């Protein structure tokens, strides 16, 4: 952590978005994470994505559980709503919040411990319900807050800072999400902002549960030789399977994006996500093919990145539950809870 806060003085030529805000207006408190933490880099990408989409900060809600990753919600968008919940229970809280106010933009920040150990069940059910939110899983393979024990995403054979070798098989959040029916599945790397920002923007625009597994090196406990989630290892072993570009609504599609090998998927709000498969024959709209591809690359020790699967036509939680369009928080209490007389009437039907 630092002793001073980031000075408010800013570059005079700083770009403004449609709301007249600069990137600096999307910042939060000073990070207290270790210097060089991948999570801080992800925070910067989140700030960039929200800024570029011109989402009003006060119309966003940030949710998290426990862990280094979960502290990160404090480090962006000071003006947004926030909820820091119990360990692993963020998905339930997000589900509840989203049920009550479907109009906010939800972003959940979690880590490999929060999501794949204590909160594994919670994550699966949020995916099943297709809660409309962006779920960022900041994945470093260790429990950094408790000094670097292996987490559930640690690869077989990875070596801890003290020299132990991990022998438990990892839970791969991407494969897991595909298996339980996620409609937006991506993987990226904190050190690759060019790839991460468009994915985050697409994820924020996606109607339904968008999970992004971001490899985020733990600079203190998992950035050494022998680690499979270090900066150096991720840079040498990750490869981009799908190149993604996000084109907001009303933006002209340029010639480059109009190439033959580019697939365009129109999102529900009219914006477009453009894909270009770098790996031959990879189809990011085919769930089964994606799964087998991922298994194969995992077996080779490779980290496949990019927007790996997208299905934007699916129904989200509110569609499943057939709720009204109006956010429930705005529905008068009398309509939400019509009173005992109405209940009495209703119960007469079953008498």
């Amino acid at each position: 952590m630092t002793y001073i806060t980031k000075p408010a003085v800013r570059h005079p030529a700083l770009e403004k978005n449609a709301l007249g805000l600069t990137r600096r207006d999307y910042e939060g408190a000073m990070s207290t994470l270790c210097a060089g933490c991948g999570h801080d880099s992800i925070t910067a990408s989140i700030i960039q994505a929200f800024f570029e989409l011109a989402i009003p900060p006060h119309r966003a809600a940030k949710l998290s559980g426990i862990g280094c990753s979960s502290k990160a919600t404090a480090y962006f968008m000071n003006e947004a709503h926030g909820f820091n919940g119990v360990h692993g229970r963020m998905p339930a809280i997000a589900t509840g919040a989203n049920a009550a106010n479907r109009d906010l933009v939800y972003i959940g920040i979690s880590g490999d411990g929060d999501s794949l150990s204590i909160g594994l069940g919670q994550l699966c059910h949020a995916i099943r319900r297709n809660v409309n939110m962006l779920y960022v899983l900041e994945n470093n393979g260790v429990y950094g807050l408790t000094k670097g024990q292996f987490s559930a995403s640690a690869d077989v054979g990875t070596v801890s800072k003290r020299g132990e070798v991990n022998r438990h098989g990892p839970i791969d959040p991407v494969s897991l999400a595909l298996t339980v029916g996620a409609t937006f599945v991506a993987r990226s790397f904190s050190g690759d902002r060019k790839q991460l920002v468009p994915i985050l923007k697409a994820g924020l625009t996606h109607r339904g549960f968008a999970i992004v597994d971001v490899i985020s090196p733990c600079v203190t406990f998992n950035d050494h030789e022998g680690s499979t989630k270090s900066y150096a290892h991720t840079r040498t072993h990750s490869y981009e399977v799908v190149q993604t570009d996000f084109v907001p609504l009303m933006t002209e599609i340029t010639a480059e994006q109009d190439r033959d090998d580019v697939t365009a998927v129109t999102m529900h709000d009219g914006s477009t996500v453009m894909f270009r498969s770098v790996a031959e024959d990879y189809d990011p709209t085919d769930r089964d093919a994606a799964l087998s591809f991922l298994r194969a690359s995992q077996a080779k020790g490779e980290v496949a990145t990019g927007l790996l699967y997208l299905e934007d036509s699916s129904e989200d939680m509110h569609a499943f539950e057939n709720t009204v369009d109006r956010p429930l928080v705005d529905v008068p209490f009398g309509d939400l809870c019509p009173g005992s007389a109405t209940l009495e009437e209703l119960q007469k039907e079953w008498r």
Partner: protein
Amino acid sequence: MHPTDVSNPDYYHKVVDCQWACPAHTNVPEYIRLIAQGRYTDSYLLNRESNVFPGILGRTCDRPCEPACRRGRLEGEGPVAICRLKRVAADLRGDITDSLPKIPEKKNGKRVALIGAGPASLTVANDLMPLGYECVLYEKHGKLGGLMRTNIPAFRLPPAVLDEEIAMIMDMGVELHLNTPIESLKELLDDGGFDAVFVGTGAPRGKNLELPGRYDSDKIYIGIDWLESVAFEHLDSIEERVLVIGAGNTAMDCCRTSKRLGGTDVKVMARKPRDLFKASDWELEDAEGEEIEILENHSPVDFVVEDGVLKGMHFDIVEWHEGEDGRLASETLETIFLPCEAIILAIGQENAFPWIERGIGIDFNSWDMPIVDRTTHQSTRPGVFFGGDSAWGPENIIWAVEHGHQAAVSVHNHCQGVPLSERPPFGMNLVSQKMGMHEWSYSNDYDPENRTPMQYADLEERLKELNVEAELGYNLEETVREVQRCLNCDIQTDFTPVLCIECDACIDVCPLDCLTITDNGDEADLRGRLTAAAVNGDQDIYVSDALPQTKRVMVKDEDLCVHCGLCAERCPTAAWDMRRFELYIPYAGQPWPTTISTAPTTSL
């Protein structure tokens, strides 16, 4: 781009905008930190090393440092009041007698003549006396200081300050001949027995305005001559209505002096529009603060004198247009008459060397000025050197001081038989300022305060007497406030590429978007695709060696860096470090200064 060579002193020197802009390269951030620590004497001595006259310059410097100050490029801020802080150090310092250079008892047998007792000659003496030279100073007036004495009014520069700082040099044992104008350089060269001669006679001739009526009245004065008469108390009054012609700093001194000698209605008349005035902004403001009217676009036509009595002057009111050749041309709108009883001409000054004979080896150019080498200050006759305004026309005190330093290097080389081209190089040192995990030896937090305004003596009081100093100087509270505004640009962000793991932490935390990791390219291309485009071509960009993991490069645009140190604080591998850059300035006979002052390693 090739990786930046930060071991070349110029690179980091250029980042310290004020120091780079200062002709004498005064170590501004360090002396401001010393003031912040209450070490006024040390701050004064550090100043003295490079600019020799901190007390004088703290009041009168033309301040090339301030327009260069990085804070001026941050929106709505104003530069640090560098000059006024120098005055604080000079006003509050203790006794420095023991810290002045020691003069050797045994001389080195070389004699140097210095002509004219202004800042240039005095600086030469200051640099040469400690090396054992015998310096002989000739001055045509009965007092020392040159233009600092004759042209800068007492309300801007109290004589006591001038006397004290000149005495520091004279007390080194300079042989002085007052009231001794040199009438013939040839004689001095032939009969003086000198090993070298330095000419520091300034630009003593005020320009005239040859318009009808010029010689019909004795109430039309040449500005610098008039100021000189006032300084030597030959004149102590002026008429009520005064017109000052010209809009340079001398004009400002003339009009403000007139106000103190009885002028009640004093106007400054300028031909050009205000943005083209030669006077510094602050001098214009100071004049206007004393109820002096400054009229632009008034071109003098003639002097109106009736029966030997000056009645006023005609002016064309003009409009300026840029012609096809890019030069400004004026168009007269109307002609007006302004009544007055006295006129002071302050439209420039020039050199004059009636006392330098032709044919003694000193070549003159087509403007009848001696040909002087820009680096060595030597004329075409070996052993004769020029500096200050006498070298290439009017500049200012701080340039005269730097000329003096350079001429002293040349004189020393000349006398020791070393080629003048062998000039001692600049050197540098870099020292990490890390005190702890997140603690630096300097106050790194950015202070958003605006520039502290200067307080002035009561208007009525200061106009009563010529020697009431107009500016009060910063008090302790104002000083404390102003020193914190300095960005410590000499505490450099120093990068060690081999340590970088490309985590982007520095880029994310930088408040001014100075940093980028990207693929290398040529300069124009790189400047365009940084986190924030580097549009200020005057400011360098730093490019690192290829980074270990991805072979990209770290690029830093130095333009707006506020030296907050957050990049270094957020760097997990200490690839970024905050290191204090010290420029080693070579002076005659001492490749590096002998008294290197450093701030103690405790934060404020």
